[in-house]
Structures are given as C-alpha cells and as structure tokens.
C-alpha cells in the first residue's frame, strides 16, 4: 500500500474485499476437512470494515484486531501464505502454527495481533497511540473491536484516556449485531457512536455495507489523528453473515435480516464497479493465490510439539 492513498482504485478495493471473503471461505472448507486446529470465527459480510478502514492506513500505522480478525490482518497487509499456514497449524505460519486464528500478529506490517480476549486490544491500541505520540511520529493506531466489546471496562477506560491525551487512535467498532449467541440488544445500551461525545471527541456511524463510506469516514478520522487532534470513534454498522464460529447453526438469527444484508453485499457491489473482464481477472488472481497458499501450507511440516513457548 503506497503512503497517503486516500481512495484506492475500485479494482484494488475489490481485490482486497474478495481476498478477505475468499480467504475465509477457503479456510472454512479446510476447517470442515478437519485441518484447522482451534475455533474459527469468520467475518463474512464484514469485509468492508477492514478494507475501508485500512485503505486510510500506511504500513507504519498499527492496528489491533480481535478473535474475528482475518479480514483486519489481510487488509493491513499480512502475508497470505503465513496466515494460511498458521491457521492450518503449520510451521511456516506466523507463529509456527502453534497459535492459530486468535493469535496472529505481524508487527512488520503494523499488525499487533488478533486477540482471544474481547476488548483486550483497546488498552493496547491506546498504548500504541501513546507510543507513537511520544516519539513524535505521525502514524496512528486503529483499534478494531465488536459492539460486544463496548460493554467491557476497557472500552470506557480507553476512550477516556485517549481523549485526555489527544492520542492518535481511531476506535473502530464493528457492529455486526451479535456477540457470540446473543443480539447486540443484550450488550449495548443506547448507541455506540454516541459514547464518544461525552468524552469530547467525534463519534461517527457509518454504513458497513458501503466500502466507500467506510473509507471516507476512516480517512477523516485518521487525518484527525495524524494531525494531533485526537481520537475518533467509528461505529461501522455491518452484519455477521457467518455464525459465531464455523459450525454454529446460528438459529438465533433472523434469516430475512441476513438475506437483506446478503442482498447488499459489499463484495458483490465492489465487483459491479468493475468491467467484467477486469473483475474476472481479479477473481482468478485471488483463487490462484489462495489455492497456492493452501497447497504450500499443507506441504509444510505441522507445528512441532517440541516448540512450545
């Protein structure tokens, strides 16, 4: 990703969205084959959040991600092969295949880590923003988290401290309407985006079905942070098309609601922005990339029991 690109060309957006989507679909197949150790939380339907936000970021910016973070990792530029290998429990994976989906990190591309603790990234992103500020860098930290995480103590602490110190951080709440097996109404009183107001910084709600809207809002928030004007809270309204984990029948979900989101799928819409031949070329490119990633991962040795850490 070149620096300071504010609105990536449509082909790039589609490529990134499709990568997130197909990566997870491919991993889910592997999971069903019994090749993925550990639980697998997919972000199908939420790709535009990660891609839109990361379109506003540089390589030297940092993000913290969650238990549902493949799309964040990919959008921030994590290596597809090393991610695939990690998920398949291979020694060529990001942490030698030992940790899997909930613990992927690549500080070299500014990915401080997915996280098994809901809300666990909030203090870390705040701390990273503090570190960037102390060093006088104009990089920013972005914290991804679900609407369920807004109920954690870390959420209020982080917002307050980020506001007090005018930290260069963007809090991105990916409101996908569910936290595990319960709807957001179980978790969120009032409105997430409004929480920022009381701390004296902007809270913005944005349509997570529209990657351009996400990118625009992110660009503004990131610019604000870079300029030293402090944090922003973005609430991206999206929808978890997958179950909580692969295998979750998600019976608690209203099928009509899910269908409504499928009907305005960001990946499909991004594809429609392109000429069919261009789109088809990207489709091929991504399939080749992922098929290769799976193949290379499966050819690699499995995680080594001698390599505990």
């Amino acid at each position, binding site marked *: 990703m070149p620096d300071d690109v504010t609105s990536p060309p449509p082909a790039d957006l589609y490529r990134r969205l499709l990568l997130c989507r197909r990566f997870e679909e491919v991993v889910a197949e592997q999971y069903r084959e019994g090749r993925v150790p550990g*639980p697998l939380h997919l972000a199908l339907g939420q790709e535009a959040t990660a891609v839109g936000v990361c379109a506003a970021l540089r390589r030297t910016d940092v993000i913290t991600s969650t238990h549902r973070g493949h799309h964040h990792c990919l959008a921030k530029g994590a290596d597809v092969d090393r991610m695939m290998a990690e998920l398949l429990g291979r020694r060529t994976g990001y942490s030698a295949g030992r940790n899997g989906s909930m*613990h992927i990190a690549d500080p070299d591309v500014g990915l401080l880590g997915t996280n098994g603790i809901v809300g666990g990234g909030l203090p870390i992103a705040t701390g990273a923003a503090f570190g960037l500020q102390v060093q006088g860098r104009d990089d920013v930290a972005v914290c991804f988290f679900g609407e369920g995480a807004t*109920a954690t103590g870390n959420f209020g602490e982080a917002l307050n401290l980020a506001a007090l110190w005018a930290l260069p951080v963007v809090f991105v709440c990916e409101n996908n309407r569910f936290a*595990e*097996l319960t709807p957001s109404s179980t*978790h969120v009183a009032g409105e997430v985006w409004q929480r920022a107001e009381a701390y004296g910084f902007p809270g913005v709600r944005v349509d997570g079905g529209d990657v351009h809207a996400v990118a625009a809002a992110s660009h503004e928030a990131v610019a604000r942070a870079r300029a030293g004007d402090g944090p922003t809270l973005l609430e991206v309204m999206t929808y978890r098309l997958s179950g909580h984990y692969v295998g979750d029948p998600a019976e608690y979900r209203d099928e009509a609601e899910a269908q409504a989101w499928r009907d305005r799928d960001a990946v499909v819409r991004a594809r429609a922005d392109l000429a069919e031949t261009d789109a088809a070329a990207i489709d091929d490119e991504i399939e080749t990339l992922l098929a290769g990633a799976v193949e290379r991962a499966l050819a690699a040795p499995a995680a080594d029991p001698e390599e505990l*850490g």
Partner: protein
Amino acid sequence: MTTRPLKFWQGVNQALHQEMERDEKVVLVGEDVGGPGGPYGVTRNLRATFGPNRVRDTPISEATIAGLGVGAAAVGLRPVVELMFFDFCMLAMDQIVNQAAKYRYFTGRSLPLTIRTMSGSGGSYGAQHCQSFEAWFAAVPGLTVVMPSNARDAKGLLKSAIRSDDPTLVIETFGLLTARRDTPVDEDFLVPLGVAETRRTGDDVTVVATGRMVDRALEAAERAAADGVSVEVIDPRTIAPLDRATIVGSVSRTGRLVVVQEAPAPFSVAAEVCALAVEECFGRLRAAPVRLCAEFANVPTPQDLVEARVPGVDTIHAALLKVAE
C-alpha cells in the same frame, strides 16, 4: 442412591436445576447462559424453566458480572455467576479477591456467592482460553475453591457451593465437559466442600491428581498395579481449603508422593501439596515427591501440541514405577 451415567456438563446442569428449584433465591447470570443455554450448552433449559428474571444473559463485563454476584448476595440472593473461562476471570479479580473474598471479614455477614468458570487445556482454544491458575484463588483467605474432575463431583460440589454461605469458586474443566461418571440423581446428594476423595486405595505410592489428570492417574495406577505397584489416588476436589488430613494420612502411609496436574509446576497446587507432604510427613517420606505437570509454557492451539505439554498416562505410569523403586 439411584445413579445415572451423566456427562460432566449434565452434572452441572442438574445441580443448577435442582438448586434453583429448591430455593428461589438462587439466580444465574453470565454471558450467553440464558437464551442460548451457555456457549457450550452447560446451562441449557434453565431460562426456559426459571424465566428471564432469574436467568440472565449479561453483556461482556466480567468485573460487573462478578459484582452482580457480590451485590445480589449482599441483599439476600444466592447468585451463581458464570465467568466462562478462567482466563476471563482476570478481568474480575478485583471483585473476586478484593471484594467478595473479604466481605465477611469487613461486614461480619455471609456472602452466599458461587462463581463458576472453566479452565484447562482440553479444548484447543489456545493461550488465552486454557490457562490453569487455580492456585491463585486458593491463596486468598476467604475463598473456597473447588475443582471437580467428573460429573458426580461437578454436581455435588456445585450444589454444596450454592448452599454455602461463603463465596465459592467452582472451576470446571473444559476438557471434561462430555466425560461421564455415575452420578446420583437425588436432590439431596451433595459432595461436601473441603473433603478429598480417595478414588483408589493403595500402599506404595500416593498420587494426588486434579481435574483432567484424575482419570489419567487412575489409568496409570491400574497399569502400575499390573506391575506390582500399589497406588492410592486422591482427588482433592476442593483446592481451598485443602483436605490436608487425607493427603498427609496417605503419604504418611505410602511414603511416596506423585502430584499430577494440568497447570505448570512452579507456584502451583502441586507445589503446595509437595510442601505439605514434606512438612508433615518428613520422617516417613521414602522418596522425593514428584510433580508431573504441564510444561512451563504457554498453551498452544493444536491438540497434539496441547497434549505434548501435559502429562499423559504413559508418563504417569513411568513415574509411578520410578518413584516406587
């Protein structure tokens, strides 16, 4: 007593049903415990049976979930709160250790609070979901800590915890949720707090095993018997207060101690048991106590790595023969 071969989770579920039926002051709160019946189905049907007033799905607010228990117990309820995984208890330590555990000391009143959580590396969930730090809570004056290793104890200990007037932490073992043991169906069946169970008697070696390691210890003991080594297997069941008398009595007799647990050795329950044995049975020890524990390393995700980290039956069996030499 009529028994049924229940799974561990069924033991927990039955205990909750029975105690909620018995006493309307018992309530259940936690993430997903209500509508969904628990992320692993452990609390299923409780909401349907006892209604949304007494069975509540909370937001992801571990400190406040524990606080719900403290406050509600202080005003007369007998709450059961669930903190899903031990690793998430770290977000609630203040409420558990600084508040709940000290309530009686500060106020002179009872605090009939039960906190349930899961621990252990049985689930391929990685380094932030599978930790075993039961020793932490056992070190806190004012807390009772139980750690059932099977369905029967899961039921009987949880029922005792709910009826207890003091804060009790029930550490369920994730890797055991579907393991079966014959369990009395009776509503009056209780497993007393603070009492170990001698799962197998023997004369040559005492094994103290907890949680997921109890069944392995029993199997290794069977094998050792075939080799002519007679092994006694004690499951403390309650970690705090530890049933010192049972452990000391056995070790005094056998002179040999092997402690098997899923937590790493340093600063653990196994350390306490070894210290206890050497303090109390010094003259009678015939061999150095042995700790068979998880490697002092983070819990990985792939199941074979997880298993490589913890003692298996072979390891235990070999250690039994060696210590008995």
